[in-house]
């Protein structure tokens, strides 16, 4: 027994290369298998622990109208509910970016502190580690911010990660451009809301069951049933509360308005009364004035009569006097002179004086009458004047009285006008109030029932996709190792049968010495098992740890998750070891058994060499004749050693296929960053506006011109969701102001007609992956929901090429048709004639209307960082493929040469030159390699297709085609690896001794 084991160890030592190749192939097969197999469970184990450690909610309840304490109490009563934690959150803008504020809680969704410390006062907060640093200050902007929180900024005391935000894509926000950029946790006291925005539920038994397991699904579906039952009850209850409250409010308002109106009416009435009495007074005054005026007039008339009578008397008197004077021959003017003359005559009179005196006396009498008359006339005139003055004064007085009265009346008229206006106003007001009240009352009917949203963990961006990614690894894990295991098995079969055939004589000797078959088999089994054990150990300890780490690091780029926890490998190790050992043992026993069937005597004789045979091609004489002699040999040989030929082809084909898959995967992944962000999304920059606008304001326009920004195009971008395969997906709907210019910025290429297209008037253009997820064709209709969960149904006019994320593009016309508006825009797409990105950004951001600036080149860069990890897996595949090819080819070539040692030695004796011998031997290998490569290319295309589809995530579509250069690389590397093997084996070929040809066949 010991001797047999010793002989096994000697065999190992004798042909260590062969042993090593068996070990390596086993290691490669099991390493790849276990590594890829373990990656998925390790990932899920890690994530489950993360969920458990952070007490990730199982359900989140939100309501369109918030949640009350009653809601919470009724939730707590549910059978499958362990805990209900009411909480708050609100989306706000911070420097133009949408962020979500959460309340810190240690009962649910516990955050993991990455740096810094917990907040020590209410103005400190914990912030998303991917966006903020300790010490940063975060400002909040929102209309009526104080209705939500009592702080307007916070200082970051610690940075965190949260199991609620697994994905680097954090989801949709209801502010800003709709893309949630970061999350911030603030102390619960900072929220000022009088209702809860959400309630988190921890289900009973959730911690004990593994995330994503059937057990967990079962648990949550039971909880879901309960919640579904509770949902309508609470919705109705809340609705009634709200309705009652509203009705109370309306009637209160109605009362208030009515009282107010009544008061106003009263005031107006009072005013009118005052006006009326004033008017009366004024009218009275006026009539007394009229009376006065009449009196004045009559008095004037009588005075005037008296005066004119006086004047007549005076005139009469004057006429009498004049008559008398006439008698004297005098006139009034000459009277005095005459009188004086007469007087003189009288005084001087001596004669006849009497007559003279009497004349004189009579004249004197006339004169005194004249004087009297003049006096009277004088008096009359002065009286007339006096009277005139008096009357005119009286009139003046009366007239001013009139003026006053008229003014008063005019004022009162104005008063009336004001009163009438007031009345009219009051009427309007009353109408309005009535209108408003009836409107409010009507609105009561419109009060929507509050809607509860029951959100399970799948609403958490990344929760489902993480699982899917992990499953994808598993899917790839099932395909890839099949190659390795298949090849490993074939290799072992080949190697073992070669080993045993070589040692026929030894077996014969052992048998003839009386060793039992079992013992002989055990010897080979021992050899086999040592190889298996070492191979499995190496494979699992390298591949089993390396591959999950690499895979996980790849996914780390898309997720914010803790470090990978490696599961223990003992169980796996023992299972794989058992399986591998069993397989290897079967191979060994099968081959041994085949030999041991023979009697010892036959075994001791050399094995008859394999017969030569004509190949089918030889029947076709005209062709066969033309084939050169050495080629004939090669063709015959290829058909002679079918097993080896098959193995070589499989090995080479596998290698080429894996390489092609690897390179193709790299093409598919690497190519899309460039394609997506420079060939499909052709704009250089995307400018987010602070507010929705209807047109480009002139200051923004000027700013753009100043910064060399060309051809700005207003677009509207809004976030929507659609549901496919029971999963919510985010999609951006983009609609431009001008669809002619739009095609300059978004390259629309129909995958249906394979032609460039424009935005259709009717219908939306959706992206490929979205169409695939929805199974939508040109002409189907799709459903999308906005952030308020309103449903819209769109007609699919076409499907366009796209690689990352989902988009819906529609013309302004169609947008108007669906949403009733096409006038509001929140983004500008533009080209930039400058490389000073930072400068342009900061210039633009000084404008209050501009929120954020995003460059396509940045997107390419950030995409490239994400996929960096993916490349590692590709290199892993490429490395493994090369190793596989080298091991397989080496092994096969060595076996080939060992088997044909005599033939080769004979050729040497016959005087074949080294190059002739090597071409004789290698020509086969080269042809097989070519066949293998051809087969491998086809196989590789299929494998690549499978792998790339499985490796795709829901919002990324890789390029499905393989670059020509990748074919070249795959072929070249395969050729290079076989050349390396040929170089290694060439030495072996040279070492074959010609003396071999002289030896007996059994040596």
């Amino acid at each position, binding site marked *: 027994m010991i001797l047999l084991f010793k002989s096994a160890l000697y065999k190992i030592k004798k042909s260590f290369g062969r042993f090593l190749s068996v070990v390596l192939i086993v290691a490669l097969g099991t390493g790849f298998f276990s590594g890829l197999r373990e990656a998925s469970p390790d990932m899920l184990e890690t994530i489950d622990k993360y969920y458990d450690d952070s007490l990730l909610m199982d359900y989140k309840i939100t309501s369109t109208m918030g949640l009350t304490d009653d809601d919470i109490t009724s939730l707590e009563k549910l059978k499958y509910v362990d805990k209900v934690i009411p909480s708050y959150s609100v989306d706000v803008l911070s420097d133009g970016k949408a962020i979500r504020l959460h309340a810190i809680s240690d009962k649910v969704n516990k955050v993991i502190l990455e740096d810094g410390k917990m907040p020590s006062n209410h103005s400190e907060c914990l912030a998303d580690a991917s966006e903020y640093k300790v010490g940063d200050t975060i400002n909040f902007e929102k209309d009526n911010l104080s209705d939500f929180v009592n702080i307007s900024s916070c200082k970051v005391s610690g940075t965190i990660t949260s199991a609620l935000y697994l994905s680097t894509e954090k989801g949709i926000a209801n502010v800003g451009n709709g893309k949630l950029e970061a999350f911030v946790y603030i102390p619960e006291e900072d929220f000022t809301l009088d209702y809860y925005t959400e309630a988190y539920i921890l289900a009973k038994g959730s911690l004990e069951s593994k995330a994503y397991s059937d057990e967990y699904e079962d648990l949550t579906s039971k909880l879901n049933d309960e919640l579904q039952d509770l949902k309508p009850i609470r919705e109705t209850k809340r609705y009634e509360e709200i309705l009652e409250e509203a009705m109370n409010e309306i009637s209160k308002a109605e009362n208030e308005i009515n009282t107010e109106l009544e008061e106003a009416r009263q005031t107006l009435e009072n005013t009118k009364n005052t006006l009326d009495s004033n008017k009366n007074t004024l009218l009275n005054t006026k009539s007394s004035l009229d009376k006065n005026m009449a009196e004045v007039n009559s008095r004037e008339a009588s005075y005037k009569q008296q005066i004119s009578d006086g004047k007549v008397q005076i005139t009469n008197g004057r006429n009498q006097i004049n008559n008398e004077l006439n008698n004297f021959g005098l006139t009034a003017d000459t009277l005095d002179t005459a009188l004086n003359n007469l007087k003189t005559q009288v005084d001087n009179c001596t004669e006849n004086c009497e007559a003279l005196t009497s004349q004189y006396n009579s004249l004197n009498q006339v004169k005194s009458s004249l004087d009297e008359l003049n006096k009277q006339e004088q008096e009359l005139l002065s009286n007339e004047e006096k009277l005139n003055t008096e009357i005119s004064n009286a009139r003046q007085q009366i007239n001013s009285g009139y003026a006053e009265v008229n003014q008063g009346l005019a004022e009162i008229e104005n008063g009336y006008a004001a009163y009438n206006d007031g009345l009219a106003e009051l009427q309007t007001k009353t109408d309005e109030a009535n209108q408003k009240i009836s409107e409010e009352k009507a609105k009561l009917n419109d009060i929507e029932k509050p809607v509860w949203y029951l959100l399970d963990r799948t609403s958490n961006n990344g929760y489902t996709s993480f699982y899917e990614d992990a499953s994808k690894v598993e899917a790839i894990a099932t395909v890839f190792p099949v190659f390795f295991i298949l090849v490993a098995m074939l290799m072992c079969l080949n190697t073992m049968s070669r080993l045993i055939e070589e040692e026929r004589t030894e077996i014969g000797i052992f048998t003839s010495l009386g060793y039992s078959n079992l013992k002989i088999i055990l010897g080979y089994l021992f050899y086999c098992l040592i190889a298996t054990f070492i191979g499995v150990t190496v494979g699992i300890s390298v591949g089993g740890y390396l591959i999950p780490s690499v895979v996980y690091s790849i996914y780390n780029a898309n997720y914010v998750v803790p470090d990978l926890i490696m599961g223990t490998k003992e169980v796996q190790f023992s299972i794989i070891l058992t399986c591998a050992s069993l397989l290897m043992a079967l191979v060994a026993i099968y081959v041994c058994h085949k030999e041991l069937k023979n009697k010892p005597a036959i075994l001791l004789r050399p094995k*008859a*060499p*394999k*017969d*030569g*045979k004509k190949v089918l091609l030889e029947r076709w004489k005209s062709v066969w004749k033309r084939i050169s*002699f050495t080629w*004939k*040999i090669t063709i*015959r*040989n290829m058909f*002679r050693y079918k097993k080896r030929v098959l193995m070589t082809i499989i090995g080479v084909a596998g290698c080429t296929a894996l390489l092609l898959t690897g390179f193709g995967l790299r093409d598919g992944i690497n190519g899309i960053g460039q394609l997506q962000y420079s060939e499909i999304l052709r704009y250089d920059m995307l400018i987010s506006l602070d507010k929705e606008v209807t047109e480009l304001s002139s200051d923004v326009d000027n700013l753009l011109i100043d910064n060399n920004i060309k051809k700005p195009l207003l677009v509207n971008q809004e976030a929507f969701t659609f549901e496919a395969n029971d999963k919510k997906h985010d999609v951006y709907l983009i609609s431009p102001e001008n669809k002619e210019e739009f095609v300059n910025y978004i390259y629309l290429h129909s995958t249906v007609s394979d032609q460039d297209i424009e935005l259709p008037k009717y219908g939306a253009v959706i992206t490929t992956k979205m169409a695939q997820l929805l199974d939508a064709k040109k002409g189907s209709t799709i459903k999308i929901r906005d952030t308020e969960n309103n449903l819209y149904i769109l007609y699919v006019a076409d499907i366009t090429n796209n690689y990352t994320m989902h988009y819906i593009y529609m013309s302004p016309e169609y947008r108007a048709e669906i949403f009733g508006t096409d006038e509001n825009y929140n983004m500008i797409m533009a080209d930039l004639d400058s490389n000073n990105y930072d400068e342009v950004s900061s210039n633009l951001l000084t404008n209050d209307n501009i929120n954020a600036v995003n460059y396509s080149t940045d997107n390419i860069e950030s995409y490239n960082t994400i996929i960096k990890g993916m490349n590692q897996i590709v290199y892993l595949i490429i490395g493994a493929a090369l190793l596989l090819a080298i091991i397989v080819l080496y092994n096969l070539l060595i076996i080939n040469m060992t088997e044909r040692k*005599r*033939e080769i*030695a*004979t*050729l*040497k*004796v*016959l*005087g*074949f*030159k*080294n190059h*002739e011998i090597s071409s004789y031997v290698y020509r086969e290998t080269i042809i097989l390699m070519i066949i293998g490569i051809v087969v491998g290319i086809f196989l590789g295309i299929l494998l690549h297709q499978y792998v790339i589809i499985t490796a795709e995530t829901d919002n990324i579509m890789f390029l499905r085609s393989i670059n020509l250069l990748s074919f070249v690389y795959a072929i070249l590397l395969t050729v290079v690896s076989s050349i390396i093997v040929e170089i290694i084996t060439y030495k072996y070929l040279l070492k074959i001794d*010609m*003396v071999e*040809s*002289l030896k*007996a*066949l059994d040596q």
Partner: protein
Amino acid sequence: MAYIELKNIDKFYKMGEVQIKALNKASFTIEKSELAVILGPSGAGKTTVLNILGGMDACDGGKVIVDGNVISDYNKKKLVLYRRYDIGFVFQFYNLVQNLTALENVELASQICKNPLNPKECLERVGLGKRLKNFPAQLSGGEQQRVAIARAIAKNPKLLLCDEPTGALDSKTGRKILELLQEMARKYKMTTIIITHNSNIAEIADRVIHMKNGKVEKITINENPKDVSEIEW
């Protein structure tokens, strides 16, 4: 000057620590067109002589001259050409390429030579004109050896070296092979060397070189070599 001349050939082999003298100043000559037999028991150094003469191994001392060329001075490259153009080799176990027909096995050799004989004629010469397209597995041992001889002579070599050509054959078939070899020498004037431990075979030779313990014991010349049919087996 003899056609083939070996002068004081030494050959050592190292077996672990011990040095074994396979040939110790072995010397002999063979004339053109002669049928020579090198005779000796196992371990006498026959195969070493064959290896050296056949250009498969180099000697550690002495001189080997074939047709005026000093083979012992040849480097590896020259030895390949020597084997290629000057030597026809017949093995004990035929060493035919199993995957080639009789004709093709002959062609395998003839195609690399400067002045080969017609392969078909060679096979006809060895009496296998009707088995051209048979594979070795379809031929008896004797027939296979004939193919081997045809392959050797097709090269039109200066020297036909045969290593125990009848060793794996029964006496009747062996006789036929020997007849054939004798015919080659006599009829076609081919210098032929047969290596054997069978002293009966020596009787058909023109020259017999007796070897023992790495030395040439004696050389006998048969003035009248027997026909193959005359010898006892």
